[in-house]
C-alpha cells in the first residue's frame, strides 16, 4: 500500500467519532462556570470537527504530512498534575534564566500556580491563565478569544477550541511597556498512556504597548503525547510584540500548532521560532496585517534529524496598504528527516505599496533526508514589490574546501558551516539569554550530527 493510500484510511470515521464522543462525555464538566459564549464556541468547534475530521494527504494543505499516527492513537486528556520537586527540576532547563520573574507554567495543559511566577508585573498587565481571566478580564477575553484563529479554519484548531478549558493569557494595556520578557511554558509529562493537551494562548498587546513573549513547548519523560496548540496574538495600533517560540518536545511527541497574529496600524511584530523536537510536527502560522503601515517579520529555524518530520505552513496576509513583511526560514535536515515549508504571501485587492520578501533555505545533510518547499505568492494589487526565493542543497563544496585548506578538519568544517546556517536566524533574536541557550542547543546538535556522519 502506498503511503498515500494508507493515509486515506486515517480519514476513517472512528477516529473522528472518538473525539466527538469524548466531547459529549465531558460537555457537562465545568459547564457551570463556562460562560454561554464560550460554550457556543466549543460546540461550534466540535460540530466543525465532526464535519471535516482528520485531514488526509489528498488534501492540498496536507499533501506532505500524514497525521495518521495522531488519528490512530487513542489519547487521553491528562489529569491535573500534582506540583512536585521533580517537576520543578524537570522544568529548569526550559526556563529563560534562573531569575526570570514573569512566567506562567502549564503541565499537561493545566495551569500550575506553584511553578509559575507572576511577580513584579507593571500595573494593569496580566499574565496568567484564561480560566482566571474569565473572571477578571472577561470582556477582553470574549472580544478576542477564537476570533482570529477561528475554529473553522482547520480540523486541529477546531479540536483545540472544542476542548478549550484553560490556557495562557497575557494582557498588556494601552501604552504600557513590559520590559522583561514574559514566558509561557507548556510542559508535557506523559505517563504510560498516551496523553493529549490542547494548550491555548491569547496575547493582547493594546495600542502603543510593547511586550516580549516567549512561548516554550517541552516534554519530560519518554511516553507518547500530543500537543495541539493554538496561539492568538493581537497587536493594537502602534504596538509592538516580540514573540519567540521554542519547540523542544520530546522525540516521541506529536506537535500540531496554529499561531495567528493580527496587527493594527503601524504595529510591529517580530515572530521568531525554533523547532527542534517532536517526531511529527506541523505548525501553521497566519500573520494578518490589518492596518496600514504594519511591519511583520517571521524568523524561523527548523533543525531535524533521525526520523523527524516537520511541516511549517506560513501565510502572510497583506490586507491593508503600506505594510512590509519579511520572512526568513532556514532548515537543516539530517538523518531520514523530512522538512516541509509552505510559505504564502497574499496581497489583497487595494493593499498597494506592499513590500514582501520571503526566503526559505534548506541544507540537506544526508542522502536520506527529504525537503519540500512551496513558496507562494498570491497578488491582487499592482503597486507592490514581492519576491520569494527558495534553495535546497548540500553544503557548498567550495566553502568546505576553503575551510579544509585552512587546516580545519572535515567534521569541524561541516559543523561550522551548518551552524552558520542556524546562526543566521538566531542572530536576529533580541533576548540574549534565550539566544545563548538556543545557540548552545543548535551547536551541540550539529556537532553530534557531523561527528556521526563522519565523511572524510
Amino acid at each position: 500500500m502506498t503511503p498515500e493510500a494508507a493515509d486515506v484510511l486515517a480519514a476513517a470515521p472512528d477516529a473522528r467519532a472518538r473525539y466527538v464522543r469524548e466531547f459529549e462525555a465531558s460537555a457537562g464538566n465545568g459547564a457551570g462556570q463556562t460562560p454561554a459564549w464560550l460554550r457556543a464556541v466549543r460546540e461550534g468547534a466540535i460540530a466543525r470537527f465532526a464535519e471535516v475530521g482528520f485531514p488526509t494527504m489528498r488534501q492540498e494543505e496536507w499533501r506532505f504530512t500524514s497525521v495518521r499516527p495522531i488519528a490512530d492513537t487513542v489519547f487521553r486528556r491528562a489529569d491535573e498534575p500534582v506540583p512536585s520537586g521533580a517537576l520543578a527540576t524537570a522544568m529548569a532547563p526550559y526556563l529563560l534564566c534562573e531569575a526570570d520573574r514573569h512566567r506562567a507554567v502549564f503541565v499537561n495543559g493545566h495551569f500550575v500556580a506553584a511553578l509559575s511566577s507572576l511577580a513584579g508585573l507593571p500595573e494593569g498587565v496580566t499574565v496568567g491563565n484564561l480560566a482566571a481571566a474569565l473572571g477578571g478580564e472577561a470582556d477582553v477575553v470574549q472580544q478576542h478569544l477564537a476570533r482570529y484563529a477561528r475554529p473553522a479554519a482547520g480540523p486541529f484548531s477546531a479540536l483545540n477550541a472544542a476542548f478549550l478549558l484553560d490556557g495562557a493569557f497575557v494582557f498588556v494595556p494601552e501604552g504600557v511597556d513590559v520590559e522583561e520578557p514574559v514566558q509561557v511554558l507548556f510542559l508535557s509529562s506523559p505517563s504510560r498512556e498516551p496523553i493529549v493537551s490542547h494548550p491555548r494562548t491569547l496575547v493582547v498587546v493594546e495600542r502603543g504597548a510593547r511586550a516580549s513573549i516567549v512561548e516554550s513547548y517541552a516534554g519530560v519523560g519518554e511516553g507518547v503525547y500530543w500537543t495541539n496548540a493554538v496561539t492568538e496574538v493581537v497587536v493594537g495600533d502602534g504596538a509592538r510584540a516580540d514573540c519567540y517560540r521554542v519547540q523542544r518536545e520530546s522525540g516521541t511527541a506529536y506537535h500540531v500548532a496554529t499561531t495567528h497574529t493580527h496587527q493594527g496600524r503601524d504595529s510591529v511584530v517580530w515572530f521568531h521560532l525554533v523547532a527542534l523536537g517532536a517526531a511529527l510536527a506541523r505548525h501553521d502560522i497566519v500573520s494578518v496585517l490589518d492596518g496600514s503601515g504594519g511591519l511583520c517579520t517571521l524568523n524561523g529555524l527548523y533543525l531535524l534529524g533521525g526520523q523527524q518530520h516537520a511541516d511549517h505552513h506560513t501565510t502572510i496576509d497583506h490586507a491593508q496598504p503600506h505594510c512590509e513583511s519579511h520572512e526568513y526560514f532556514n532548515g537543516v535536515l539530517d538523518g531520514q528527516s523530512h522538512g516541509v515549508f509552505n510559505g504564502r504571501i497574499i496581497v489583497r485587492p487595494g493593499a498597494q505599496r506592499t513590500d514582501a520578501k520571503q526566503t526559505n533555505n534548506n541544507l540537506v545533510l544526508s542522502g536520506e533526508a527529504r525537503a519540500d518547499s512551496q513558496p507562494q505568492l498570491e497578488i491582487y494589487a499592482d503597486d507592490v514589490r514581492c519576491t520569494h526565493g527558495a534553495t535546497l542543497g548540500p553544503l557548498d563544496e567550495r566553502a568546505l574546501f576553503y575551510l579544509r585548506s585552512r587546516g580545519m578538519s572535515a567534521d569541524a568544517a561541516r559543523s561550522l558551516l551548518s551552524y552558520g546556517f542556524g546562526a543566521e536566524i538566531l542572530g536576529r533574536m533580541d533576548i540574549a539569554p534565550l539566544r545563548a541557550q538556543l545557540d548552545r542547543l543548535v551547536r551541540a546538535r550539529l556537532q553530534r550530527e557531523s561527528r556521526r556522519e563522519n565523511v572524510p
Partner: protein
Amino acid sequence: MTTIEAHVLQPYKYGFVTDIDADVVPAGLNEDIVRLISQKKGEPAFMLEWRLKALRHWLTMSEPHWPNVKYGPIDYQSIVYYAAPKQQNKLESLDQVDPRLLETFEKLGIPISEQKRLSGVAVDAVFDSVSVATTFKETLAEHGVIFGAFSDAVRDHPELVERYLGSVVPYTDNFFAALNAAVFTDGSFAYIPKGVRCPLELSTYFRINAAASGQFERTLIIAEQGSYVSYLEGCSAPVRDENQLHAAVVELIALDDAQIKYATVQNWYPGDEEGRGGIYNFVTKRGKCAGANSKISWTQVETGSAITWKYPGCILQGDNSIGEFYSVAVTNNRQQADTGTKMIHIGKNTRSTIVSKGISAGRGQNTYRGLVKIMKGASGARNYSQCDSMLIGDRCGAHTFPYIDVRNSTAVMEHEASTSKIGEDQIFYCKQRGLSAEDAVSMIVNGFCKEVFRELPMEFAVEAQNLLGISLEGSVG
C-alpha cells in the same frame, strides 16, 4: 486613469468563421460515439480498444478543481466530439483541397498552397477534427522524417504508434488526458530517425471552426538516437459567445542524445471584455528524456484562451538529460491562466531550467504553478527556476505556486520569484527620451519577456512580440 491605462481595445484578429459544410457526429459522449470516431478514421483494432479503455476509465473519474481558475460547469454531453470539413475522397494533391480551407489558413497567415509556402517550415494544418494538408512531406521523406496527420500515422505506421502512444501520458494520467484518449480525432505525428537533424522546422496549425465542438487533438513526436527536431504549434478559433473546450495531449520522446525543441504560440479566442465566450484550453503536455544526454525544451507564448490550464513537463529519465521550460503567459480582460511546468529528475546529473514570465492586465488572473521533483537516484541534479510577474492595472492578479520536492542530498535547486509593475517613472523616463507611451510599454514588456522570446525560432519570435502587443492593447497606453 494613469498614463499606463488608456488605449482602445483591438478586437481579436482571427475571430472569423469559415462557412463550410461539416461532417459532424451528434453531441454527447458514449461508447457508440467513440466507436463511430474510430470507424470514421478507419483505425486498427488496437486503437479502438485503447479508446474504449480510456473512456471507461474516464467515466470513473471526476473533474479536478484544484487550479486557481473559476469557470462554470462543463456539460460533456453537449459537446460535439467530431467535426470535419466535408471532403469525401482521398486527396491526391493540394489542389483538391477545398479552396475555402486554403483561404482560411491564408487569412491566418499560414499559407499552405505551393507558391506561398513559408520556406524552411513544414506545416500540418488541422481544421476542427482533421488534418487538411501537410506541406513539404516529400522533402522530409527524403531524410526519413515522418511528419503528418496522426490518422495517417495510425494507418501507415501502426507499429510506431502502438509502441509510443500513451507511453508518456497514459490515458489514466488525468481527467482531461483520459477524455482526450477516448475521443481524440487528429493531430500531428513526427518521427525523426536515428542521427537525422530534421532539415525543416516542423509546424502544426490548429483551427477550431465548428460551433459547439471541442477540439481534442493528440501530438506524438519521437526523436530517435542522436536526432534533432524543432517543432512549433499555433492555434486560433472564431469569436463565439459560448465556451469551447480544447483538451489536447502532447507526448514527446527523446532517446539517447536526441533533442526536441517544442514551441507553442497559443492564441485561441480569449473571450470578450466581459469574459463571455473563449476557449477552455486544458492541455496535457509532457516530454520524456528517455535516453542519456537527451534534451527537451518547451517554449510557450500563451496569449489567448479564456482559461489556460497546462503544465508542459519533462521526465528526465536518462542520465545527463536536460529539461527546459520557457514561458510567457499573458492574461488580459477576464482571462485566467494557471500554467507552469513539471520537472521530474530521475537520472543522474539531470539538469532543468525554468523561466516563466507572467503578465496580468485588466482583470486577468495569472498563476504560475510548477513542480520540481528530484528523486532519490538523481544525484548531482540541478534546477534553476525563475518566475517573474508583471502587473498592469490594479484589478488583476499574479500568483506563484511552486512545488519543490527534493529527495537527494547532492541535488541543488534554486527558485526565485518576483512581482512588480511598470513604474510611472520608467514610462516617464522613456517618454522624456521621445518614445510614445505605447512604445515605452511595449519595449518594457518585450524586455521583460526577452529571455523567453530568444528561445523561439526567428519568424515566430517576431510573431510572438506582435501578438503580445495586440493582447495587451487596451490595458496599456
